[in-house]
């Protein structure tokens, strides 16, 4: 009985972080800050949701289910490795393109 609760809590947490990331992507003022919301919010929420699903598999711990849980964790590890890399590659591309950084002072002068 404890296992579904753990996995539900983990998944709910992941959804919360997904919401944070989505709101951040919509609200943050420039490309660089949006990148923060996209890169981090997604990695962590993905990780917690997948962890929750892996835990849910362990409800009935036969060898097949344990292997499936390991597979899900493998995906989580895979995304933990690739996500920062693609975040870095994208932000570097933006930096090379010369996208301007948002500054608070500029904004105050304008408004």
């Amino acid at each position: 009985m404890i296992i579904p609760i753990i996995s539900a809590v983990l998944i709910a947490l992941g959804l919360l972080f997904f919401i944070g990331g989505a709101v951040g992507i919509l609200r943050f003022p420039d490309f660089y800050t949006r990148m923060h919301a996209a890169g981090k919010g997604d990695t962590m929420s993905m990780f917690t949701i997948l962890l929750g699903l892996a835990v849910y598999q362990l409800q009935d711990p036969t060898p097949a289910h344990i292997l499936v849980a390991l597979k899900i964790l493998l995906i989580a590890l895979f995304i933990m490795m690739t996500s920062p890399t693609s975040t870095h590659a994208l932000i570097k591309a933006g930096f090379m393109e010369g996208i301007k950084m948002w500054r608070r002072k500029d904004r105050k002068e304008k408004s």
Partner: protein
Amino acid sequence: MKALGFIAVLGTGLLLLAASRDFPNWGDPDSPASSYRLSRHFITETINETAVPNMVTAVLADYRGYDTLFEAVVIFTAGIAVIGILRRYGSRNSIPSARETPLTPKKPDLIVESTVRLLIPIIQIFALYVIAHGHHSPGGGFQGGVIFGASFILLALARDLKAAQNWVAEKRTLILACCGILIYAGIGVLCQFLGDNFLDYQILHRILPTDPVMARYHSILVVEIGVAFTVTAIMFSIYSNLSSNGKMKEGI
């Protein structure tokens, strides 16, 4: 003009939605597709005739072997066409490049390169797993070939095309692509030599140490490997031609 296009798309979408109400339910046993006697035969007899648990793979590589053979040939032809159009040998050819400004020289990026180095063997073992488990899970030659080709493309992205070419030279990709088709068609011809129809695998039990059912099972695997060869080679060759403007010097 944009509004007109939008209206057209919206209208088509609504029509399709309206039409979808007439479809049979998902998995309906009385729908025409399920009540046709051939599908009943596939559903009940596949496991007895080929020992393959995954019906789709059995239909794809055994019952409809011709179809899949020529699908592989289509991919092969597409690759050859891309090479024929884009590839430029040497400097004597003076057709101006479509891309006017040259790319800035590429600096190696430690982070991307390290990640790719860590990932490539894992991607490759995953690709081989997908190819080998076409019997049990969705997968097979086409999917596995694409994933295997993706590992070469990753290397070409992270370093440059040269590094990937050193690993798998251009000539060798073409030989691999031809090999794939040859393996597939060769099995068909072998069946003919043994006195049965083209691509009728069960006759192979005369040369394999198994019974006819398992002969079909194993030939499906061999056929998938052939398809995987072709798809891998053609994926990589199309990528390297497109990304380097046919010069094979440096990619994206």
